[in-house]
């Protein structure tokens, strides 16, 4: 929150200034980021509770995360956790599916659930005057979901159709394959279920997942917003979640990560109007010293519209509408990946340009100006993301579930600022090198296979 003094200072600084329209105006540096106060407690049954007050609007944002998510799916049954998530609202011991929908709408609430790489999330918002009713509804779904058979059947049938829809998009195919190549036998390899695995899911599997993993000791509850006094709020939370029986927290299945290696896979999608190129590898955990240099390096390479990939591949060469790089922290490691979409005629020069940009990151130090610009960008976007209730809630919940301390958020800006050019060059040389990154290309093989083969040994697969 900005202090009164800071506002006065800004005002007087502006008064003294005469506007020179021929150049970018001088402005004060970014203000340091201050994390809002986080009130953390634990119920006797092991449920972790984080409360953050934000009284700007009469709204409360809710997140309840369970560690594990999709990685807890049996190897033969990818899609189990997401099916659990999608059926939580479809009938509980207290309410039919329809009753639940009506009760939720009557308080202007939204409540949804999904399952990601490391967590199953239940999330929503409600007008703050209805916070206690909302807590009652959310406790009902995570504790009492019954998974009625007709709802399971409908969900399975519709999910198979949705899968067909998802797989009709070439970027989805590229992303799915890239995860398989990079993560091998690790659960992170599975991004989407198959019609067969969805078909195999039975009610007993859903109940077993619920009973084993949807437990208070495995969960983090975050409420951000226009909250009532803490004693009152905690009494509502205890009313909903206090009698939820404690259970032992099961270990997370791991699996080793394969050694990153070069490979090229071409997925043949006949009639494709353009080509999706994805490449990447797994890197390091969030608390590793290479993590922040990698975040900054990936951003210089392909984060935002002043990154090298965007400027060179889109703006200068016009090869693609978009070209970007990301570095995403998972629990066991992080994923570095680059993606772009080009038309058939420019595939070869675009692949050369992509390789050249990856190599350059490891060969030359970044200039002080480019580095400082990118650090400002990263920090600015980080702070903007935390300006909304959902931004705060989702960040806090994800960190807590992955065992990262809350202070990580406050230190983020400082950690980004302290990354040096030599760290960037060293990590880029190590992690962006072409002999350690897997490449997946989706396009019409009859038109592009010969071109792709110029870049190495190619495995061709059919798009399904």
């Amino acid at each position, binding site marked *: 929150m900005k202090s009164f003094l800071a506002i006065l200072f800004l005002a007087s600084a502006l008064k003294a200034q005469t506007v020179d329209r021929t150049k970018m105006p001088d402005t004060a540096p970014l203000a340091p980021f201050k994390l809002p106060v986080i009130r953390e407690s634990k119920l006797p049954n092991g449920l972790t509770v984080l409360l953050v007050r934000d009284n700007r609007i009469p709204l409360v944002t809710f997140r309840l995360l369970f560690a594990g998510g999709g990685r807890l799916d049996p190897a033969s049954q990818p899609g189990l956790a997401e099916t659990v998530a999608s059926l939580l609202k479809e009938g509980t011991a207290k309410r039919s599916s329809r009753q639940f929908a009506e009760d939720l709408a009557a308080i202007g609430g939204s409540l949804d659930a999904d399952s990601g790489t490391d967590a199953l999330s239940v999330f929503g918002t409600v007008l703050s005057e209805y916070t206690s009713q909302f807590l009652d509804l959310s406790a009902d779904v995570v504790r009492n979901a019954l998974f009625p058979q007709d709802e399971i059947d409908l969900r399975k*049938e519709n999910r198979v159709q949705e899968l067909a829809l998802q797989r009709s998009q070439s970027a989805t195919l590229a992303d799915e394959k890239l995860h398989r190549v990079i993560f091998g036998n690790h659960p992170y390899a599975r991004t989407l279920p198959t019609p067969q695995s969805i078909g195999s899911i039975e009610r007993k599997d859903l109940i077993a997942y619920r009973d084993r993993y949807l437990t208070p000791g495995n969960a983090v509850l975050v409420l951000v917003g226009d909250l009532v006094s803490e004693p009152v709020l905690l009494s509502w939370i205890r009313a909903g979640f206090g009698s939820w029986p404690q259970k032992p927290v099961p270990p997370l299945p791991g699996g080793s990560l394969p050694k990153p290696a070069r490979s090229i896979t071409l997925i043949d999608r006949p009639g494709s109007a353009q080509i999706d190129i994805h490449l990447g590898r797994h890197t390091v955990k969030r608390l590793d010293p290479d993590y922040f240099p990698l975040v900054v390096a990936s951003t210089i390479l392909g984060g935002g519209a002043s990154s090298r990939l965007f400027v060179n591949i889109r703006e200068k060469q016009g090869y693609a509408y978009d070209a970007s790089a990301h570095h995403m922290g998972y629990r066991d490691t992080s994923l570095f990946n680059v993606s772009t979409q080009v038309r058939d005629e420019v595939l070869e020069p675009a692949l050369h340009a992509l390789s050249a940009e990856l190599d350059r990151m490891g060969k030359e130090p970044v200039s002080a100006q480019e580095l400082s610009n990118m650090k400002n960008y990263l920090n*600015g976007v980080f702070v903007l993301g935390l300006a909304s209730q959902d931004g705060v809630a989702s960040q806090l919940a994800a960190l807590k579930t992955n065992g990262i301390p809350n202070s990580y958020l406050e230190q983020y800006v400082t950690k980004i600022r302290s990354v040096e050019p030599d760290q960037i060059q060293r990590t880029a040389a190590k992690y962006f090198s072409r002999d350690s990154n897997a490449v997946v290309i989706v396009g019409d093989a009859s038109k592009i296979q010969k071109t792709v083969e110029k870049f190495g040994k190619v495995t061709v697969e059919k798009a399904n």
Partner: protein
Amino acid sequence: MKPFLSLILFFTSLAAADLNIPFEKYTLPNGLRVILSPDNTAPVVTVYVIYGVGARSEEKGRTGFAHLFEHMMFQGSAHAPKGTHFQAIESNGGTLNGSTHPDYTDYFEILPANKLAVALWLESDRMRSLAITKENLDNQTEAVKQERRLSFDNQPYATAVSDVFPALAYKNWSSAHSIIGSFEDLNAAGVNDVSRFFRTHYAPNNAVLSIAGDIRKEEVRKLIEAYFGDIPRQERAKSPDLTEPERKNAEWQTYKDPLARVPLVMIAYPGPKRRSPDYYAITMLDVVFTTGDSSRLYQSMVKEKKSALAVEGQLGGPFGGVTDYKDPGLYTFNLTYNPSLQARQVVEQFEQEIARMQTQPPSAKEMERARATMRSFRVRSLQSTMTRAQLLAQYELLDGKPELLNSELEQFLAVTPRQIQEAAKKYLVKSKQCALEIIPAAPAEAKQ
């Protein structure tokens, strides 16, 4: 910690649906309308500029210009050469974008509050002196074509929605032509055409500048005067004649989509006049009909009959929504459905629900849910400075009344069940319906 007393006050004001967003509006001598909405609770500011030009302002042989122009706006201006725009905003910790719509084109920057002047400098420099060169034009023509390949030609349903559907739903060319334009027209675009388009449409008197967030109004007014004050006004372009002949007969078209895997049917009816009583009634009807898991269409078609995978309704669809709806416009529905059914069967079930709405007004419980949903949507959306700036600017451009942001919720909440029933009878009429059935075509390889 919030004291008990303020809690009570708060509940009282919320019950009156009174979410007051403070703002002030004024006009510079050159015609630029300015809206300032201070909110000092987070150190963030949004600068949003909206121009009254969109795809429906295009002329024959010049389709795609509105969108091409949105790209040109990032290619540099007199004092901010090519590449400066993205870098200046991002290196100051901000994000930015622009987008093209049927009736307007908008640009925004979201920044740490103390970086506001950077956005004002950039927006004013390109409004005054955009660099329209052959090189920039060729480069962006290619980028737009690539965007078309990526976002339309290579995506299921996209071609049907952007090219086929408007031609079915509208008779007037201004509304019926493709929003993204044709490659032929883009190739034919010359520097002179683009310059003329810029002068007429990108003038201060055809724009609204809206700023929301952590600002001090007196200081911002001075900055705006210094940056925008002497940009010359231009003669306004003639507004396109959008008059749409009344639809007399239902129309049905089938489109085979080689990229689609699941069938989809789009259904549309001509919508009401913006801000008329029917506009509010249709919006509330849509909440009862399609919003959330308790809505009628979801319960009936997705849950009971299991014929639809998903149902969506939108006043202002398929390219916009209720806030930027402009008549003549459409009330559209998208239904992805079970492939074992025929589109005609699905539409028949949909029409049974319409008939139910026409014979029987929503119940008191349904109305209670619809009102709570409406309030909740509004509160949620107003937490971002971006939405505040955007809605204030859109309401100024489309209504001349940004104050509707604070007053319109009451009008939505005042809609009666009877008005909804009457609106269903008046607008959701078979003879005014058009439907586009999009079915998966055999994959390209099967044809070879």
